C-alpha cells in the first residue's frame, strides 16, 4: 500500500503550534500519514486531540509550523496563497459541521458557486448546469433547486454541502464532523451517501468524527490523542 503514485496525500513530520496568549499549544506533534486515492478514512479522537487541525492542514486552509504536506504531488509550504487557493478549488472539496452554505443563494446557486470560480467552467453555463444537476440528483435534492438554505432541514443542507463539495470533481473530500449537527438517522444517511460516492467515483473521503457508530463504517481509522497518532488501522 505504499505505492508512491497512489499516495495522494503525504503528511511528513508535521507539527502545528498555536499561540494562545503567552502559551504555545502544540496541537500536532510529528504527524506522519500517507493517504491513497479512493480511501474512506476517518480521523477520530476526543475533543482537542487535533482532528480539526489535521484536517485544516490537509485542506490547505492552514500551514504547518514544521514538516511538510504533499497534496496531489505539491508540497504546500512552497505555495503562495493564490496557489493554495487554486489547489483547494481544484483538488479538495469541503463539507463542514455547520454546513456553511451561502445564505443568500438558493440550492442551485450554492452548488454552482465553486464552478464559477474555475476559469474553464465560469463561461460554460451548459456544462455547469449538467454538473450541478448531476450532483443534486445524486444527493437527492434535484427538486429543491430554488430553496434557500434557511428553508431546508439540517440533513438537506448537508446534502447541498456535499453536492457543492463534489461538483468540482475534487480528488479529496474533507468533512469535519459532518454528522455532528444531525440526528443519528440523518447522519447515517449522509454517511451512506458519502460511501456511495466513494464507491462510485473513487473520491477520497477524509472525515473527522467522534461518533463510534460512524467510525465503524470507515475503511481506515486514524485515532489522534494529544496531537499524536495513537493508532492507524485499516478496517475490513
Amino acid at each position, binding site marked *: 500500500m505504499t505505492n508512491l503514485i497512489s499516495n495522494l496525500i503525504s503528511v511528513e513530520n508535521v507539527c502545528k503550534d498555536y499561540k494562545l496568549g503567552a502559551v504555545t499549544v502544540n496541537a500536532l506533534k510529528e504527524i506522519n500519514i500517507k493517504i491513497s486515492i479512493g480511501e474512506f478514512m476517518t480521523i477520530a479522537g476526543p475533543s482537542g486531540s487535533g482532528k480539526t487541525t489535521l484536517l485544516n492542514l490537509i485542506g490547505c*486552509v492552514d500551514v504547518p509550523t514544521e514538516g511538510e504536506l504533499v497534496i496531489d504531488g505539491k508540497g504546500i509550504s512552497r505555495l503562495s496563497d493564490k496557489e493554495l487557493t487554486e489547489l483547494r478549488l481544484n483538488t479538495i472539496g469541503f463539507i*463542514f459541521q455547520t454546513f456553511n452554505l451561502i445564505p443568500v*443563494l438558493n440550492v442551485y446557486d450554492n452548488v454552482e458557486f465553486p464552478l464559477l470560480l474555475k476559469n474553464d467552467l465560469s463561461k460554460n453555463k451548459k456544462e455547469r448546469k449538467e454538473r450541478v444537476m448531476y450532483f443534486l440528483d445524486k444527493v437527492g435534492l434535484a427538486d429543491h433547486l430554488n430553496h434557500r438554505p434557511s428553508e431546508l432541514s439540517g440533513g438537506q443542507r448537508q446534502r447541498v454541502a456535499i453536492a457543492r463539495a463534489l461538483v468540482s470533481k475534487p480528488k479529496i473530500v474533507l468533512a469535519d464532523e459532518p454528522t455532528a449537527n444531525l440526528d443519528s438517522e440523518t447522519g447515517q444517511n449522509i454517511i451512506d451517501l458519502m460511501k456511495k460516492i466513494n464507491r462510485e467515483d473513487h473520491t477520497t473521503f477524509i472525515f473527522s468524527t467522534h461518533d463510534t457508530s460512524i467510525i465503524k463504517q470507515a475503511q481506515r481509522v486514524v485515532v489522534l490523542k494529544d496531537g499524536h497518532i495513537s493508532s492507524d488501522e485499516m478496517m475490513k
Partner: protein
Amino acid sequence: MMLLKIAFRNLFSRKLRTVIVGSILFSASVLAIIGGALVESIAISMKKSLTESLAGDIQIYSSKATEKFSIIGNQEGNFFDVKELDDFAKIKRVLGEKVPNISAIIPQGVNFAYINPGNILDNKLEKLRELVLRGEKQITKQISEQTTDQITNHIRNIIKDISLTYESSFSMVGALSEDEKEESKRNINIVMKDDFWKPFNHFNDSTNDSKKVLDANLEFLENKIAPLIVDDTQMYFYYIGTIPHQFMNNFPLAELVKGDAIPQGKRGFLFNDYVYETQNKHRVARRLDEIKKKLERDKEKISKSKVIKDLINANIEQVGEIYGQMTQTEVEYLKMDLIRFLSINTNSNTNADTTKDIKKLLEEFFNMNDENFFQRYNYFYTYIAPKIILYRIKIGDTFPMKAFTRSGYSSSVNLKVYGTFRFKNFEHSPIAGNFNIMDLMSFRDLYGYMSSDRKEENKKLQEEMDKFSMQTDGEELFAKKGNININIDVKKNTFTAEVKTVSRKKINQDLLNQTYSDLEMENGVVINAAIILKDKSKTNQTLQEIQKVSADEKLNLKVVDWQEVTGSLGQFVTVIRAILYGLLTVILTIAIFIIMNSMLMSALERTKEIGTMRAIGASKKYILKLIMLETFAMGSIFSILGIGVGMATVFYFKSRGIPAPTDIFLFLFSGPRLYLSLHPIYALVVYFVVVCVSLLSSIYPAHIAVNVSPIRAMQRD
C-alpha cells in the same frame, strides 16, 4: 453574475443597514443635485443681473488705482480711490481696433449724490418768490396778487402748524438746545405777526424799498422757519455717469419706464424707477404702495401683520403732510368730500359730523383695514394725490444735483429729469434699484473735473460776484430801514446766494440745451468702463487679449472680469457655492464613516461565510470584488435614486420657477422667479463622487474581509 447576485442579495438581506447607508447617499445626492441646481441657477441669474445691467462682461479702470475697484461700492457705501482713465476716447479706439471680440465699451463712473428738494415750506416759498419775480416783470396785477394771497395764506397755515408741532417733532429726531429753542420761538413769533406779511400784500408796488424787504422776509422764512419742519426730504443715491443712449442700448436689462430717454448728446438725468417710486415719493403714498404690495403679492392681512399696522399708524401720524401741502380751498373741498366718503363707507356711527377738522378726517381715512384698504387706496390716488406733492422731483423738473468731488468739496449741477428706467426682472430689488443714470458731462462736473465750458461758466460767475460785492455796503444800510429787524449777516449771505442762483440758472440753462457728440462725451476722463463681448464664452481669453493690448499700447489699464468688480455680490455665488460644497463634504465625510462602519460590521458578521468561500476556492481578489461590488451597487442605486428625485425636482421648477421670498432675492434670481436648470454633466459628477465615496469608505472593510482566513470556515461558533 454570481458576484452581482450575491452583492444584491446581501444588500437586500441587510435591510436596515442598507436603508441607513442608502438614505445618507440618497440625501447627499438629492442635496447635491438640488443645491447644485440652485447655486448654478443663481450664478447664472446673478451673472445676468450684473453683466447685463451694469458691469458688462469685463471692466477696465486705471492701473494706477490704489484700491480694488468695485462698481457697487464697498460696504460703507463709499467708492474707491481708483484714479481715472484720462483719455477714454483713445482707449476705446485702440481696444475697438485690436480686440475683435469687443462688442461695446461703455464709459462709466459711479458716484454718490445727495439732494434736498426742500420741504413743503421751501416749495411754497419758491413759488412765492417766482411770483414776486414775475411781479417785477409786470404780469397783470390781478392774477399774480390772487395767487400770491393764496400762497401766502397757505404758508401762514403751514407756519401755524409748525408752531404747534415743531417741539415734539424735534424731540423725536434729536432735541434742540435751549438756545436754539429760544431762537426758534422768537423767530416763529416774528412770522406769526401780521406785520411780517404786510409787504407781501403790496409787493408789486415795485419800489425798491418794498422789494428788498420782501426778499429779506422770504430769506428769513427760508433760512429760519423752513428748517423747523422735520421731514425726510434729503435724498441719497448712487448714479452712474455714462453716455446714456449707449448705456440703454447695450445693457439689455435696462429699460425705460416713465418719461423719455435722455436725448442723444444732451445732459440729463434718468431716475431709477425704484428710487423714483420710493425715496422720491410722498411718504404717505409710498407706504400705501408698500401695504398694497404686501396684501397683493405676499397675501398678508392688515389684521395679522404688525409691519402693516405700523405702516398704517405712521400714515395716521403724518396726515399733516397731506393737508399741509394743500391750499385752503383744496382742504375745504377735501373735507366735504371726505365726510361724504367716510359716512357712506363706514357703518354709520359717524353721522356726517361736519364739525370735524381735516386732521381728524384724514386720520380716520388712513386708519384702513382689510375690508376698505383697496377702496381707500383708489380714493387716495384719485382725489388726494393730485393735490399734494406726490413726487419731490417730477419727471420734467430741473433740479440741482449735489455731490462731493474727489477732493472733498461739494459741487452742484442742474439736471433735467427726463424719465425713469429700471433693470428688467428685478426692478423691485433694492440692490439694483439704487443706481440712477446721468450724462457723462454732468458727471465730470460733479466729479470735480472741469470741462472747458464749465471753466468758462465759473469765470462768468466770478465776474458777477465781484460786481455785486462792490454794491453790498449800500444794501446793508438800506436794509436797516426795514420795518423788521433782520440780522444783516443773513441778508448779506442771502443776496450773494440769490445772485449766484440766478446767474447759475441762466448758464445752466445754456448747458442743458447744448448737444454733445459721442466723441465729445468720450473725449475726457472716465472712471471705468464696461466692456460687452460678442462671444461671452471667451471672457477669460478676451480679458487677456485686452491686457496685452493695454501693455503694448501703454493704455495703463487694469482689466478685470465682472465678478471681480461686483464685490460682495459677485462673490456671493462663490460663498453659497462654498457653503453647499462644505455641507456636502460634511455629509459625505459622515457617510464615509457610516458606510465604513456598517461595511466593517457586515464583513465581521460574515467572516464565516467569507472563510467558507475562501476554503472552497475563492481568491482574495474575488472577495475584494464581492465587497466592492456590494458598495458599488449600493452607491449606484441610491445615488441614481437621489439624482432622479433631485432632477425631477429641478425639472419641476424648471418651467414653474421658485418664487423669490423677499425683494433681495429678486436680484439673486434675476427676476421674480428662479428657473432651475442643471447641466447633465453635473448629475454625472454627483454620481461619480457618491460612488467613489462609497467605494473609498469600503476599502478598509474590504481589506479586513480579504484577509479573513479560510480556517474561519472550520470553526464551530
